[in-house]
């Protein structure tokens, strides 16, 4: 057996407490791939990039830098399961690398708590780890229950991918890494318009109706592709597309619904851990995933 690789796990707020089934699925899948996640008690809220930035940007980047500095002390690469957290850490890290002035200013503040940020940290999201570090070949070996005959729509979400100079993802307009991971499970990737469109969630606090218009448009375009489910990485996209789906689809077809699965859940199912997903389905999925899981068939 190959040796375990450990990443520093940056939990954030949403995944561990609102959507712990994300963490459960991710940990289970990663474990099969000989990866362990190690949390650090020094971490706090990233802080989230869609509203706190507009409260006080300098405070946002300072708090983000504190988290980066905590991660640096672990000497490991940092993995975040949340796209918001990933974005915050990656962008803050990048800005610090690019701007000596900013770095100096922030380190003055960090000094008060005995921390220091260098900008050398490597921040990763789940796609970096699965697609890059582990590799498709290795993952393929763990697929015991191929999802042939199903078609999934990858919803990447903005903050996972952009801006490229900070996220180090493959493409800002036509990313492919999640597509590849869906294909590895044996499923087909749905082709739909506006691959990188936003789920709408960030403006829920300021204009929910507009947000629903965007969410509805998103789901309507995905519907046209005939996808069986939407696959997401981000807890915020998940919440928007999942729990707000009914309000959104009311705008074009109140009858329509489409399950939303976390990428980790999808991989877990294809790796034979369907039971684990089922056991959390009722509690954490507002759009029924039962029928979909039946389609996948067979006890896992």
């Amino acid at each position, binding site marked *: 057996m190959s040796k375990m690789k450990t990443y520093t796990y940056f*939990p954030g*707020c*949403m995944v*561990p*407490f*609102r959507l*712990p*089934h994300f*963490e*459960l699925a991710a*940990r289970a899948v990663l474990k099969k791939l000989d990866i362990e996640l190690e*949390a650090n*008690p*020094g971490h*706090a*809220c990233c*802080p*989230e*990039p*869609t*509203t*706190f*930035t*507009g*409260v*006080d*940007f*300098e*405070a946002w980047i*300072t*708090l983000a830098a*504190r988290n980066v500095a905590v991660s640096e002390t672990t000497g490991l690469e940092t993995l975040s399961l949340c796209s918001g957290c990933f974005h915050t850490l990656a962008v803050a890290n990048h*800005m610090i690398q690019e*701007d000596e002035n*900013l770095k100096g200013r922030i380190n*003055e*503040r*960090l000094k*008060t*708590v005995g*921390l220091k940020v260098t900008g050398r940290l490597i921040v990763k999201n789940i796609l970096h780890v699965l697609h890059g570090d582990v590799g498709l070949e290795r993952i393929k070996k763990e697929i015991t229950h191929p999802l042939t005959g199903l078609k999934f729509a990858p919803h990447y979400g*903005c*903050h996972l991918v*952009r*801006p490229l100079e900070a996220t180090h993802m493959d493409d*800002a*307009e036509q990313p492919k890494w999640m597509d590849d991971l869906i294909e590895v499970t044996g499923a087909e990737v749905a082709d739909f318009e506006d691959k990188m*469109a*936003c789920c*709408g969630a*960030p*403006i*829920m*606090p*300021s*204009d*929910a109706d*507009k947000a629903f*218009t*965007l969410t509805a448009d998103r789901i309507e375009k995905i519907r046209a592709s005939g996808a069986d489910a939407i696959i997401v990485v981000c807890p915020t996209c998940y919440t928007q597309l999942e729990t707000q789906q009914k309000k959104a689809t009311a705008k074009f077809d109140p009858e329509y619904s489409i399950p939303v699965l976390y990428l980790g859940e999808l991989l877990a199912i294809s790796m034979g851990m369907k039971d684990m997903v089922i056991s959390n389905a009722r509690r954490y999925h507002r759009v029924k995933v039962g029928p979909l899981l039946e389609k996948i068939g067979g006890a896992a």
Partner: protein
Amino acid sequence: MVVRRSTSDLAFRNWVLEQPEGETLLRCYQCGRCTSACPVAAIDNSFNPRLFLQKILLADESLAEEQLVWTCLTCEQCEVRCPEHVKIPHLLILAKVRGLVGGNIPQAALDRARAILAGGRIIMVNESMLKTRDKMGLPDLGQPPVDQIASVLKEIGLAKKLENVESVYGGGSNE
């Protein structure tokens, strides 16, 4: 939506230019590609990122009071397409920051910010959440170091600033 008034001094513009990545503003040549790329502009004609940048260029601080800036998704679709790599959503974020004292901040955003300062998280973690984690076999994550947050933010004085802010949006959060 034409610029209604502009302040005679350049305070707003100069402040933006001093912020990290703020000087990307000067690369904007007002081509309008951002506006035609923007999904929010597509459903609301009064949301026009190009015009927002024009206001900053003209040092028109009325932008900071525009509730519209808070309907930016920070999706960066505009930035991806901008021929000059202007950090558009970031510049709008800076406008939001300037609007804080005037209360141009959605209630939910204010709540989240206060929660972070008070508890280190945007959500309140309750017993049942901890129990669920335990049942799932997920490790205990401990308490965020709130004292450290206060300490690194001292110089910025955010806690003080937030004390007196009242959201002009009113109402509770949508969460």
